[in-house]
Each structure stands twice: as C-alpha cells, then as structure tokens.
C-alpha cells in the first residue's frame, strides 16, 4: 500500500487536523466525535444543511462546508458511514432555529445512522428533515432492494440547496428542492483501477491491464460489468447513454454537466472526457448550460471518472450560480 499516511487507523483524524489547520478561519473541526462546521455556525434563522458519509471522497463533504453550501459535515471512517452521535452533535451545533436538513446518500449504513441521529435530534426538539440522494443509474432500482446509490448528484444538491438556504427558504422548501435536484440528476461512474482502503491494505478489486469496470460506485465496490479498455469517446457513450435514457432528456433541454474525477485521474483526462461529452450532447441538441469538472466526489486514489447530468431550469441555474465559499467549491465570494 503506497499512501502518504502515518497509520491506517489515524487517516481520518490526521486529515481532519490538516483541514482544521488549513481552514481555521472558515471551518471548525471537532475531533471527538468527528464533525466539521462553518465557523459562523449556527446561522440564526437559516435552515442548516448537514451531510456526511464515509471518508475517502474528499473534498466531499468536509470541503463543501461554508457559506452557500453545507453548515456541517460528518466524516466517518474511510468508506464507513459516520455514527449517529456525530450527526447529532453536528445537528445541534448548526441548528439556527429554522430546522436542519440531512442530505443522505442512499447506502444502508448512511440511512440507518442518519435515521438514528434524526430521532435523537427530534428528541431534543430540533426539526429535522432528511432527503436521500439515489442518483446512480448503474444500479437497478426496485422496491425490494436497497435501491440506487447516492453519488455525483449529492455535490450538486448540496450546492443548490445551500444557496436556497442562504435565501432563507423554509426547511420544507429546501427539502423539496433537494428532492427535485435528486429527481433531475443522474450519474454513472467507471474505474480504470481499484482503490486501496487503508485499513484493508490491498486493492478492493483486481482489474487486468486491459480492463475497466463500468458502473462502479464511490467505495471501490465492483461495478456493473467489466469490459476491455476503450477510447474516451466510447467510455463517455457508455456512461452518458443510460443517464440520458433515465432522465428522458431530449433536444432543447438544458443540463448541468459534471465530469468528476475519482481521485487518481488527472485533470487533463477529465477535460478529454468533457470534450467527448460535449460532442455527444451536442449531437442530441442538449445544451450544457453549466459545467463542473474535477475531483469532487472521489474514491481515494481510484483512477476513473463519473458523469452526472442535472436537468436545469432557471431556478436551479440561478441557485447554482449563487455565491459559494467553501474549500472545495468557491465563486462569487
């Protein structure tokens, strides 16, 4: 295992100390239990947004805490959902009296732990709503299964709902908006290499030199199918086609296109992927109104990418454009 770490068991705590030192003025980092809040939290009268999940997806979620996005993030161990006491403490720390929205990615662990936390917070008279993000079209959806994973759309939902909360919209409005973003945003990812979970010490899966895995999640889970390497144009086709189908996008529609790096893929390749996506969507007369390109929801050092498309309307576009000031996403401030 080749990592710039001290000890597999200390990865999250050491990284949090780094985050605390780096963003001292803007973020507050609690070490026991682990959570990160805006330094100016609680913001009175504003709906507070709390998210969280396993670590290893940086900058998500801790890097999205700040004005215009999250009020708090709860980092679990690497690829392990955080525990209810983290979410409870974070929820209490950021509640500004207007209620707290939990943005939860659809994984059994995240769901169960956030549920417990919400119950505990409600016992302390904090109004909590939870919205589950389940945007991964690689997974077949069904009433009888755990359903689809939450992936790239999470980043977009956190940005857009963060902007709405800054406008002092109500908890119900922000939660409804979050559901709307989840409905309109779909994703699919692929990997060229596996990642290595520090405490496991070896790759979660093995891929041949000429193979890639299509439909992976963000935890080194194996994907939908394993196929031979292909040029970027075909990879983009494989990822985008099921999204387009699922969203039933058609000519004249506008989207936000998010090309995400999995952690080990350099930006130069993500721009190549984006240029292929532009061609593909252009050919179907779908307009990319906004874009986001870079490693925002990662899977440790995995090489690969995901594509997320979010159907835009004027409201979503203007909330996307609103100022945001976090370590991971920043503009207009």
């Amino acid at each position, binding site marked *: 295992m080749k990592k710039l770490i001290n000890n597999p068991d200390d990865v999250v705590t050491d990284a949090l100390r780094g985050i605390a030192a780096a963003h001292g003025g803007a973020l507050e980092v609690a070490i026991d*239990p682990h959570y990160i809040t805006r330094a100016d939290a609680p913001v009175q009268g504003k709906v507070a947004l709390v998210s969280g999940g*396993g670590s290893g997806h940086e900058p998500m979620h801790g890097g999205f805490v700040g004005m215009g996005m999250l009020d708090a993030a709860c980092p*679990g*161990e*690497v*690829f*392990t*959902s*955080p*525990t*209810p*006491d983290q979410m409870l403490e974070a929820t209490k720390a950021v509640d500004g009296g207007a209620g707290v929205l939990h943005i939860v990615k659809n*994984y*059994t*662990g995240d769901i*169960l*732990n956030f*549920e*417990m936390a919400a119950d505990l917070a409600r016992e302390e008279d904090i109004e909590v709503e939870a919205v589950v993000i389940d945007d*991964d079209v*690689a*997974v*077949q959806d069904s009433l*009888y*299964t*755990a359903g689809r*994973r939450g992936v790239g759309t999470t980043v977009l939902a956190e940005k857009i709902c963060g902007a709405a909360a800054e406008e002092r919209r109500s908890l119900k409005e922000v939660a409804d908006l979050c559901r709307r973003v989840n409905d309109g945003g779909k994703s699919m990812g692929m990997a060229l290499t596996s990642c290595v*979970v520090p*405490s*496991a010490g*070896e790759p*979660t*899966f093995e891929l041949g030199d000429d193979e890639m895995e299509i439909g992976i*999640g963000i*935890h*080194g*889970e*194996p994907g*939908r199918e394993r196929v031979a390497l292909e040029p970027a144009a075909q990879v983009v086709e494989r990822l985008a086609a099921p999204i387009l189908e699922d969203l039933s996008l058609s000519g004249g529609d506008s989207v936000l296109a998010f090309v995400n790096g999995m952690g080990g893929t350099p930006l130069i390749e993500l721009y190549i992927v984006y240029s292929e996506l532009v061609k593909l969507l252009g050919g179907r007369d779908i307009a990319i109104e906004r874009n986001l390109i870079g490693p925002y929801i990662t899977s440790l050092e995995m090489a690969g990418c995901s594509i997320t498309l979010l159907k835009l309307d004027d409201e979503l576009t203007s909330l996307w454009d609103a100022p945001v000031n976090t370590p991971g996403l920043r503009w207009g401030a």
Partner: protein
Amino acid sequence: MTVGHDDVVGWIRAFAAVVEDNRAYLTKLDSAIGDADHGSNLHRGFQAVVAKLEGTEENDVGKTLKTVGMTLVSKVGGAGGPLYGTLFMQMGGPLTGKAEVTPQEFAAALESGVKGVQARGKAELEDKTMLDALLPAVDAISSSLATGANLQEALERAAEAAAKGMEATTPMVAKKGRASYLGERSAGHQDPGATSSYLLLKAASDTLSKVA
C-alpha cells in the same frame, strides 16, 4: 444452569477476540461484494466495547448489553454499527434488572435483538445479510430448548444453524446492503455480515456452554 453477568461479559470478550483474529478475513469477504471495511468496522467497535467493559462494576445483564449496543452504534458506523448495535440494545431490554438469566430468558432476549435488526434493516431471509445466519440460529435455540435441550446443546444447534445460514448466502443474489448494487454478480460470495453473525453465535456456544 443460569447465565450470569460475568458469563455474558465473557461471551462479548470472546467475540471481540474472534473479531480481532478474523478482521482481515471479514474485510476480505467485504472486498468481494462490498467496500472492504466490515472487519475493521467490527474490530474498532469491539475494541471500544472491551475498553468500556474494563473494570466495570455493573452487574445488570440488560444494562451491560445495552452499553455494548450503544458503544457499537457510536463507534462502528456503516451498516454494521446500527445493526449490531440494535441487536445488543434490544437484547438488553428484556434482561434489564437481572444479574443472571435463565436459558429461556437468554433465548427470548436474543430473539428480540434479532427482531430489532430486522425492524431496522428491513431485510428478509435470503436477502443475503446477517439475518440469514441470525434468524435460523434463533429458531434453533428456541426449538432446542422447547424440546428439552440444555443451553449448551441449544447453543451448539444455534451455531450450526448459523453456519448453515452463512454458507447458504454464497449462491444468493443480494437484495439488501451494499452487495445489492452488484446484482447478479453478488452471487458466489459469502456475505461478510452473515459470517460475523455466525462467529457471534459460535462464540456464544464456545463460552456460554461452559456455564451450562
């Protein structure tokens, strides 16, 4: 022929040691159809549990089991944390206030714990989860005791049933938990949670049968 507070603590300690020994194995199973953390998650949790139990003056079986459950909930995370946490918390409920419990009480409490897991995770038998080991085990204890077996025999039957349940997860296509994302590709791999649940029953059979 009753299970005392020390016996329960002995079971938990024994399982913590088993988890330590099987940490890499459980994580390996979780690599194949999950995210390679089940072993380290449980290990982290049971290390914390053992530390918590260290030098405790507590004598109440129910309270101690609840403490175990709450410690797991706050230290494990993932799916395993709330599920195993619930198991122990719910198991502790009916045993609260007791310094020692009868085999029947123990069996009923375990059953209530497993029901808690089911209520929380909403999984059914054959969804390829820990319930595939837990549910048959609980059935085995109750029916053994009902047909006159002692605790030792009942726990042996339970561990055997859990082992069978665990093995039976291999061909299953997962419907719940992370493995469900793999669809058909989840078949052919033993479920990590069912494996740790078998180990929990096996530890019960190994340690508690001595008291029986």
